[in-house]
């Protein structure tokens, strides 16, 4: 699975979005799409498990999880990919 596919799978399973994950553009505001801050914590935990890393303290903010683009950038930064 590619990074993007994994991110979308995590969002589908844990994002509790109001819309199907397939309908999301890479820059769609995930919080606007119904992801609560509660759900974003689960998304974060699932990403850490899927990519086997820990987000650093400074990455733990809402903007890191606001879109697929932002998540991809965060994952890249933490995994050095």
């Amino acid at each position: 699975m590619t990074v993007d596919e994994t991110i979308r799978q995590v969002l589908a399973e844990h994002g509790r979005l109001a819309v199907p994950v397939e309908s999301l553009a890479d820059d769609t505001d995930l919080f606007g799409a119904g992801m609560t801050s509660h759900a974003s914590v689960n998304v974060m935990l699932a990403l850490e498990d899927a990519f086997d890393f820990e987000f650093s303290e400074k990455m733990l903010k809402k903007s890191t999880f606001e879109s697929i683009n932002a998540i991809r950038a965060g994952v890249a930064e933490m995994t050095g990919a």
Partner: protein
Amino acid sequence: MTTAQTVEPKTMTRTGDVAGRMAAIAEEVAGPAAADVDERGRFPIETIEALRAEGLLAALVPESSGGGGASLAEVSEGLVALGRRCASSAMVVAMHHIQVACLVRHGRSTLLQDYLREMSEHQYLLASATTEVGTGGDVRSSICALEVTDGRFRVEKQAPVISYADDADAVLVTTRRSADSPESDQVIVLCRPPGLELEQVGEWNALGFRGTCSTGFVLRATGDVDAVLSEPYADISTRTMLPVSHLLWASVWLGIASDAVDLARKFVQSEARRKPGTTPSASLRLAETTVIHQQFVDMVNSSLARFAAADSDVDRLSSIGFGVGMNALKVSASTLVVDIVRECMLICGLASYRLDSPYSLGRHLRDSMGAALMVNNDRIMANNAQMLLVYRGV
């Protein structure tokens, strides 16, 4: 030095010594009315009018918008003084200032900027409608939604509680951004007459904080879409409403606890005067309670300092550590106030249990029990439990 020409605002609000002037009103107005406010469960109108006359309802509004330009710490100190004399009055004033803080920090549109100025000039009182029937007490989700047509909004909300709505000049209402938005995609909108209609549902006959008149309402409002705060409520809540609420509520509760400790100390001292040379049996408990009270004072002050240090640093205000800390303040303060009042009752004995004694702590006890329930501590702990799953520590 700037040479830009500025229009001098019409300053209705006297500036300076906000805490001292609030304390004077606490002594002269709120205290004498407190028993009647509590007994009849009525709005503490005389306290609000006194604050209004002093321009203190706009204490948190910047001077450039006609307000008092006071810091949150000054208002907090004033609320401690009010809380000592009438916790209902103090809670009303706290809730008002929370709304003002949201407008000051997040009201970007010209309409909202103008409103702040008008609010300062006329010393409006602001109320809040966050909870909603059907959301199970979760203020971070809404069922009602804004309908926008031709630059006008319309909203109808079933609010289980809008404190002092009948005496407020405007209500800040949380709602879904639109009929298509998920429950968590919320905004705040300023609703005011003549576009505001409130239909009361039920009565407020509660154990404590009886003067807050926290009845339910069906709220119907229309207005200009520029009355909608542009930032998502999620951000306003994290950066302002939640920390300011917990800081100002904690200040009110500290006022209740401080008055209880004062009464307990006076009681022990009167015992000591009766039998000079012997230390009253309750004096050790008073010493212990004073230690706990000092923890409470220091916690409120350090939390105010933490908020002031974060200022408008979005990353800091949104950090998990900051959120966990502000939640811990609410849980801790609401627990300490009950602990302290209970200890003070043990110190004063039956004199505190009687309702007709100068050492009566009945109202203190009843008011303090509400602290853990207004946004239930269990809900706040659940939020912290969730955040701690990903928190990296201090």
